[in-house]
């Protein structure tokens, strides 16, 4: 069977370890940090490409973010995606899960003709994993989260997906079209084809949609459209620990540690 579109949602995230928090102004300085494709989204894209290899279809990446994400979408093209769309609009800034899922679902509807939608299970920058099932609800299609593989897609429009659960995994049968959230690290994302990357950088035309292109009014998105609000940011201070440092030869350290363990156990 030939599949219709396989749509992958993608986000660009700052490298967490490079973020700085200013306790005075209570703001996070993102500028200093490098960026990368959200790691779990790369796993989702890899899975989409593998599904395409087996069952056909076009792999289309969709993102909601600022214009500087363009090179990252081109990197997804270099990995093998057929097309990429960036939803970019100042009105979208400050969106929480509700308007984010709304916007992405509108973009997915506009792309249309889809059989499978894959998302990363969560984003590494304070992600909560609530976006995938939220998109599925807007689209009114079934969803499965924390999957590590799409094992089979049958002609009667049903798929079997492998889902991680406590202590193991289960196989869930789901009706097409469906959305699945892909687990971080479940596969090894292919490294971009650098020849394709050069082509993408020179010639690929990224489609950019605004909120209005998706028929969204400013009240539905951004801070206004959000159902939660951040009222404060607090820096987490390390708890008070004894902080006793021990140095010396391995023999001495092992002695001290053995003694210590005996005394507290």
């Amino acid at each position, binding site marked *: 069977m030939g599949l219709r579109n396989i749509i992958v949602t993608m986000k660009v995230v700052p490298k*967490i370890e490079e973020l700085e928090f200013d306790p005075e102004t209570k703001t996070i300085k993102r500028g200093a940090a490098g960026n990368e494709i959200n790691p779990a989204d790369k796993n989702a894209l890899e899975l989409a490409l593998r599904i395409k290899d087996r069952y056909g279809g076009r792999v289309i990446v969709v993102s909601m973010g600022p214009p500087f994400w363009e090179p990252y979408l081109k990197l997804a093209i270099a990995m093998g995606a057929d097309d990429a769309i960036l939803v970019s609009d100042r009105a979208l800034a400050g969106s*929480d*899960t509700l308007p984010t*899922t709304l916007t992405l679902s509108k973009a997915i509807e506009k792309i249309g003709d889809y059989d499978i939608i894959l998302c990363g299970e969560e984003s590494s920058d304070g992600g909560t994993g609530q976006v995938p099932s939220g998109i599925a609800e807007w689209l009114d299609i079934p969803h499965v989260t924390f999957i590590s593989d799409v094992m089979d897609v049958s002609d009667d429009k049903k798929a079997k997906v492998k889902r991680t659960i406590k202590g193991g995994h289960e196989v869930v049968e789901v009706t097409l079209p469906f959305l699945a959230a892909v687990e971080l690290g479940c596969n090894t994302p292919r490294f971009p084809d650098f020849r394709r990357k050069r082509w993408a950088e020179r010639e690929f035309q990224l489609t950019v949609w605004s909120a209005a292109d998706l028929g969204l009014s400013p009240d539905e998105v951004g801070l206004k459209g959000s159902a939660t609000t951040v009222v404060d940011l*607090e820096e*987490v201070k390390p708890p008070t620990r004894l902080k006793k440092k021990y140095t010396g030869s391995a023999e001495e*350290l092992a002695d001290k540690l053995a003694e210590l363990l005996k005394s507290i156990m």
Partner: protein
Amino acid sequence: MGGWKGIWVFIEQDDGVIEESSLEVLSRARVLAEERGEEVTAVLLGEAVAGEAAKLGRHGAHRVILVEDPILKYYTSDPYSRIMARLIEERRPDSLILSATRNGRDLAGRLAVKFRTGLIAHVVSLDYDDEGLLMGKVPGFGGNIMAVVKCVKGRPQMATVTPGIFDIKEFEGEAVVEKVDSGLDPEQVKTRVVDREIKELIDISKSERVVIAGMGTGGRMELVNQLAELIGADIGVTRPLADMGLAPRDIQVGSTGVILKGSLAIVLGASGAPHFVSGIKDMGTVISINKDPEAPIYEYSDHYFVGDIFEILPLLLKKLREG
């Protein structure tokens, strides 16, 4: 039933076994409900779980809504979210709180959109403000920063709670159990579990002693395992090891994994990334071994040994065995 009232807690079960962190949430909800003069309703969906429903009063439920159907034996999103949506529409709770397990998160995201309502995800604290708005603290950006988030729109107000944050408490009195039909047409169900394989249920959230392997071990677990066995500890790992598939996600320690609550953590070769250290902050004593004399983990350690794990551990094992 009137307008939006009361706190609901989704009680997760798997083949009749109650997920413990649901009871943690239930206990917290009871405390909050008493402050507000409201009732706590536990919602339990499963195949044959009436026996379990009866016990929920002990952990804080005033009422239990029980839905039994063979298709509910295991959690899957479609039937569970449809039944929950129907119950919420009919009975209008003010709040719905779930444990932030895989299934809890799966269900919460869907229901929040369904009701166009606010969802505070993965909270480590849960309260109401003076206006009755649900409010929780959410660790962000790897755990360095805590965001205080409020629901400002929609009902029911929703939150998912990080497992291990609240204690399970005992309460007096029995819950009133009300049985409700699932109303499911099996033909219409779009997700179903057709096979499953459980290797071993590993839960280190309540382990007294945990030996945690970080990247410094390179995933070479022999000595780590020996130490754990010798001192009667369980094994945990940091996120990179789980990301690399060298250990199951269930034993990953940190804000995106398990929050430990025992008495002793021995941390081997972990640098101390923010998302990791939030998983050991409640441990009684933290002992670390690290090559780097100034790794961030030092700040989170009671006893910090500067040295090579693979030099120290063999000697330590020898000494412990000698007694």
